[in-house]
């Protein structure tokens, strides 16, 4: 279990949950959600306390948006396989059997090259680090690291539609996100990890994706909450 939060940190969690923060304060709190599981849990606890207030929102009649929603659903495409995979992920998380399950997950991956990935896992079980990155909005990515080459392969399985671009971060034990640059919103991106950051791609470090403006990337710090995050496991 992580250290209990100070009163100040718990207040910050409440303020973020309530939506009081803006600008740098909000960015800072969102960054803390990314870096500190205890803080993220406190934000969740405050949401659970406050959310029942929703009861008091008055209704308002919208135009019929269903056709638009249905069209966007259809555009999401190959949803079923991805949903199956997501089901697997949510149920497996926290089970402690994540590493063992990853090979199974990779077999399930839709798309052209799952076999390659699996073969690599089998061939070099002690050298390849992998992570699955998932998020609340349904974002799902698989990461595969080759320490010999210093190359991370990020495969975007399901990403929310956005005008912003996915930016990859590694968050080591110190909790400070370091940008690994922008990655593609679909397909596989090969990320050459800068030599100074390679030591951070280790078992237990977190990989996270936030949506960022293309301009100025790689950024010094994320500007929003991650759409996906996952821990690196060596297998």
């Amino acid at each position, binding site marked *: 279990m992580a250290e209990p939060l100070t*009163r100040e940190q*718990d*207040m910050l969690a*409440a*303020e973020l949950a*309530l*939506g*009081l*923060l*803006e600008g740098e304060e*909000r960015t800072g709190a969102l960054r803390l959600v990314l870096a500190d599981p205890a803080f993220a849990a406190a934000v969740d*606890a405050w*949401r*659970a*306390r*406050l*959310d*029942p*207030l*929703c*009861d*008091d*929102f*008055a*209704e*308002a*009649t*919208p*135009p019929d*948006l*269903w056709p*638009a*929603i*249905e069209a*966007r*659903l259809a555009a*999401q495409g190959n*949803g*079923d396989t991805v*949903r199956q995979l*997501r*089901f697997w992920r*949510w149920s497996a998380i926290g089970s402690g059997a994540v590493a063992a399950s990853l090979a199974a997950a990779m077999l399930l991956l839709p798309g052209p090259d799952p076999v390659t990935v699996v073969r690599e896992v089998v061939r070099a079980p002690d050298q390849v680090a992998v992570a699955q990155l998932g998020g*609340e*909005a*349904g974002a799902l990515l698989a990461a595969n690291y080759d320490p010999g080459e210093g190359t991370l392969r990020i495969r975007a399985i399901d990403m929310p539609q956005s005008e912003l671009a996915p930016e990859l971060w590694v968050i080591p034990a110190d909790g400070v996100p370091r940008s690994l640059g922008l990655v593609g919103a679909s397909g596989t991106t090969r990320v050459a990890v800068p030599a100074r950051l390679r030591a951070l791609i280790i078992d237990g470090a977190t990989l996270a994706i936030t949506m960022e403006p293309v301009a100025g990337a790689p950024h010094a710090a994320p500007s929003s909450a991650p759409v996906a995050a996952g821990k690196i496991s060596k297998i």
Partner: protein
Amino acid sequence: MAGDIPSQSDRERLTAALSRVAAGERAALREVHDLTAAKLFGVCLRISHDREAAEDILQDVYLKVWNRAGRFDAARASPITWLCAIARNTAIDWRRANGGPTLVSDDHAAEIADDRATAPERIEAMQERARIFHCLDSLELRQGGAIRSAFFDGLTYVQLAERMKVPLGTMKSWVRRGLLQLRECLGDG
């Protein structure tokens, strides 16, 4: 049960529909949409203060519901609360990303009072009603009012201070004291 508290059967119907959404059934999402669009549009509209934006936000909300329905846990939250929270958070994200109107007209101040005034009318439904309402009503008026405005209108500290014409530091200390009392009243931490 009178009033706008959803009946048990509505709740069960919505819970069942969400579990079918989680299994990938598109018709079930339509059912969730039909049952909840007016409520969730109300949330998006009140927080965004922008009808066109609220329509876009509402679409995003149902796409999120499609993707996240597997995470709904009927033991932890009522389905409508869970859906409203998604709508509210999506609308707040939109507002923070788009600036949103900084100045809020005076009649919104009246709305805060209204929220409080209407509460007793629902007292017969109190058992159905979450304890947070009781706790919020027990706060000092300006503390409770500020927390309500943050929740229902999506106002930030800066906007709250502007509206209530107090220094930012004063507003922060009101809200923080209110939040601490809320937590104590709810008795969970």
